[in-house]
C-alpha cells in the first residue's frame, strides 16, 4: 500500500510542476497561436537567476522565485516586442523559427558564460526536508512547488475567467479583429500574455532550484513535456493544462514503478498520441 501511495504522491507532485511549466506555454499558444520554442530555455534562465542569487547573495529560492518571475515577465515581454512581433504575419513558420533561434542563443550563452557544469544549491531552507504519510515519504520542496503551482494556476484561471482583462484576453484569442473593434488594444494583450507566460515558467524555474540541479540543458525535456501537456490538455485551456499535467505525472510515475522505469516516457508519449488521434484539439480544447 505504501508503494502505491508513494507512486501516487510522486506522480501528482511531478504533474503539478509540469502544469506550472506548461501553463505559460498554453496561454501563449492558445491566445496568439504562437509556439514558443524557447520556453525550456526560459525555465533554465529562471533557474540560473535563483541559483546565482542563492550562491552569491545567500538568498533562498523560496523567496527568489519572485525575482525570477519578474525577470522572466520582462524577458517574455521583450521577446514579444523584439522577436515575435517582427515575425507575426510573415511566413507561418517565422515565429516558431525565431523562438527556436532565441532558444539556441540563450542555451549557448549560458553554456559559454556558466560552462555546462551542474550546479546545485545546497543548504537551502527546504533542502532534504521530508515527512511521512501512511508509509509514503513526501518531499517538502516538491510539495511546496506543487502548492505554489496550484495557487498560481488558480490565480491565472481567475484572471482569465473573472476579470475584464481576462475577458479581453479571451476575446483576443477568439477573434483578434473583432476584439480590436470592441476597443481592445490587442498589442498590449499580446505583450501581457507573453509576459505572463514568461512569469509562470520563471516562477516554476525558481522553485525547481530548491531541489534540482541547473545546467544549460535542463529546459530541454521539461519543454518537451510542456508541449505534450498543452497539446493534451487543449490549446489555451488552463484547467486542461492542469489536468493533462497531473495525468502525465501519474502515467510517468505508475509506468516507471509498475512496468519499467525505462518505459515511462514511452507511456507518456503513447497516451499523447492516442488522445491527439482521437481528439486533435486536446481534452479540454475549444
Amino acid at each position, binding site marked *: 500500500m505504501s*508503494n502505491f501511495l*508513494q*507512486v501516487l504522491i*510522486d506522480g501528482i507532485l*511531478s504533474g503539478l510542476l509540469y502544469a506550472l511549466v506548461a501553463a505559460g506555454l498554453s496561454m501563449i499558444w492558445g491566445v496568439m497561436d504562437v509556439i514558443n520554442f524557447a520556453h525550456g530555455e526560459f525555465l533554465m534562465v529562471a533557474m540560473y537567476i535563483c541559483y546565482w542569487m542563492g550562491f552569491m547573495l545567500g538568498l533562498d529560492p523560496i523567496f527568489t522565485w519572485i525575482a525570477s518571475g519578474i525577470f522572466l515577465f520582462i524577458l517574455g515581454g521583450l521577446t514579444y516586442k523584439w522577436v515575435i512581433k517582427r515575425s507575426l504575419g510573415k511566413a507561418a513558420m517565422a515565429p516558431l523559427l525565431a523562438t527556436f533561434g532565441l532558444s539556441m542563443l540563450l542555451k549557448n550563452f549560458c*553554456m559559454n558564460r556558466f*560552462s*555546462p*557544469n*551542474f*550546479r*546545485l544549491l*545546497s*543548504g537551502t531552507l527546504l533542502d*532534504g526536508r*521530508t515527512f511521512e504519510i501512511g508509509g509514503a*515519504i513526501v*518531499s517538502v520542496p*516538491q510539495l511546496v512547488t506543487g502548492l505554489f503551482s496550484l495557487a498560481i494556476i488558480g490565480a491565472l484561471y481567475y484572471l482569465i475567467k473573472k476579470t475584464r482583462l481576462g475577458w479581453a484576453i479571451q476575446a483576443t484569442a477568439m477573434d483578434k479583429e473583432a476584439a480590436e473593434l470592441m476597443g481592445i488594444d490587442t498589442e498590449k494583450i499580446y505583450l501581457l500574455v507573453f509576459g505572463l507566460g514568461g512569469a509562470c515558467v520563471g516562477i516554476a524555474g525558481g522553485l525547481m532550484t530548491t*531541489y*534540482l*540541479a541547473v*545546467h*544549460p*540543458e535542463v529546459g*530541454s*525535456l*521539461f519543454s518537451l*513535456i510542456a508541449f505534450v501537456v498543452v497539446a493534451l490538455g487543449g490549446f489555451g485551456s488552463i484547467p486542461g493544462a492542469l489536468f493533462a499535467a497531473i495525468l502525465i505525472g501519474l502515467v*510517468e*510515475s505508475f*509506468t*516507471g*514503478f509498475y512496468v*519499467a*522505469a*525505462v518505459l*515511462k*516516457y514511452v507511456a507518456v508519449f503513447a497516451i499523447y498520441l492516442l488522445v491527439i488521434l482521437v481528439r486533435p484539439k486536446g481534452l479540454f480544447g475549444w
Partner: protein
Amino acid sequence: MKLNKRTMIVVMLVLCTALLASSSAFAVEEIKIGALFPLTGPAAVSGQNCVNSVLAAAEVINTKNPGIKAPLAANAGLLGGKYVIKIVPADHQGKPDVAKSEAERLYNQEKVFAIIGCYNSAATKPASAVAERAKKIFMCGCSSSAALTERGYKYFFRHAPTDAIESVEFVDYIDYLNKNKKAGIKTLGLIYENTEFGKHAADEARKAAKKINLTVVADVPFNNGATNLNSEVQKLKSANPDAVFGAALGGDYSLWVRTMKQVNWLPKIALNYCTGYQNPAVQKELGADGNFFMGGMGYSPELAKKFMPEAIKIQDKYYTPKSNQPFDSDSIQEAVMLMVLAQAIEKAGAVDTEKVLKVLQTMDFPSVMSLSGSVKFGPDGQNVKALSVITQLENQSYNTVFPLKYKDKEPIVPMVPWNKRK
C-alpha cells in the same frame, strides 16, 4: 640616408638570417589529432574535462618541460622538433549519430591523423567504426563498455579497465567485506542508464554477481537526462538490496543521490562505474550528500600523491589552469592516450598510420599518468595493464579502500544513513 657597401652587406646578412630563422620556425609541421567528446548535453562537464586533459598532454609534448619526468616532456615537439601536436576539438553532444558524422568530418575534412574519444561508449562505438573503415587510428581513453574491444577491430585502442574488469573487482571487494568485515551483503540492485555503457555494465555486473552468489533483486534501467528519478529509486527502495551498482553520468548521478536522500533510503554500499561518481565538479555540488558512496577509479589526487607524482606536476602546470579542478579518473585517461600515441609516432619515426599502428600493437609504453605505470595493448586493442582501485568518498576526498595494496583508509560500511549525517 646613404649606406656604404659594407653596411649594406651586414644588413642583408641580418635580413637573410632572420628570414631563414623564421622559415625554419614555419617548417614545424602540425599533426592534427581530433578530440571528439560531449561538449554539450548531459555529459558536457566530463567532455570538457576530457578536452582540457588532452590539451594539457599536447602542451607537455609540444613544449620543453625539463621538470617533468615523463616520456617526450624533455624536448619540444616530436621527431626532433619537426612536428607539434594540434588538437582539433569536436562535439558529439552525447549522441551516437552525431559522433559518427563528426568522426567522418574530422578524418575527411580536418584531415586528422587520429581521433581521441569519445567518453560515452555509445558514441565511441560508431565513431570508432568510422575509423576502422577509413583505416585510421582511434584512441579511446575512458569508454568502458567491454563490447568495444570485442569487435576484432585493428585500429582501435582503449586505455580504461572495462566494465567486466570493474565488475569483478566490485564483487571481489564485496566478498572481502563479507569475509573480513562481516558486512552481510547478499543481494544486489542495479541502476543504470539505458545506453551502450549502462547496459553492458549491468550485463557484466549480473555475470560477476554469480561468482559470489550475490542475488540480483532489482534491475532498473533509466533514460538519461530524465526530469526525475522517483520511480527508479522507489523500485530500488522497495527491493531494498544490500548493495547497489550504479552507472550514471554527471547530472543523472546527482539526481539519483538526491532522490535517495529524498526517499530516505540507502543500501549498505553503493559502488559506481566511473562517470558521475568520479567527477569532482559533481561531488562539489553534492557536498556532504555525496559522502560514503564508492566507485572504481584509476586516478585521484590522493592516489597520485603516493603513486603518480609526475601526473600531479602535469595537472598543476597544464590541466588545473584550464579546468579549475584536479584531473579526474576519466579525463586523465584521454591524456594518457595522446601521450601513448605521441610515443608511438616517435618510435615509428614517421607520421604514417601503418607504421604507428605496428608500434601501438607491439610495444610497451611507460605512462606516468597510469596507475600501473605503463600501457600495453592486447591483440583486441585493450590495455592489458589497465588498473583501477575502489575508493570511498568522504569530505570531498577519495579514500582508497581496495585492493589492500593501495588502501589508505578503512571503509565505512554500511553507509551512514541520511538522518544520522551531520
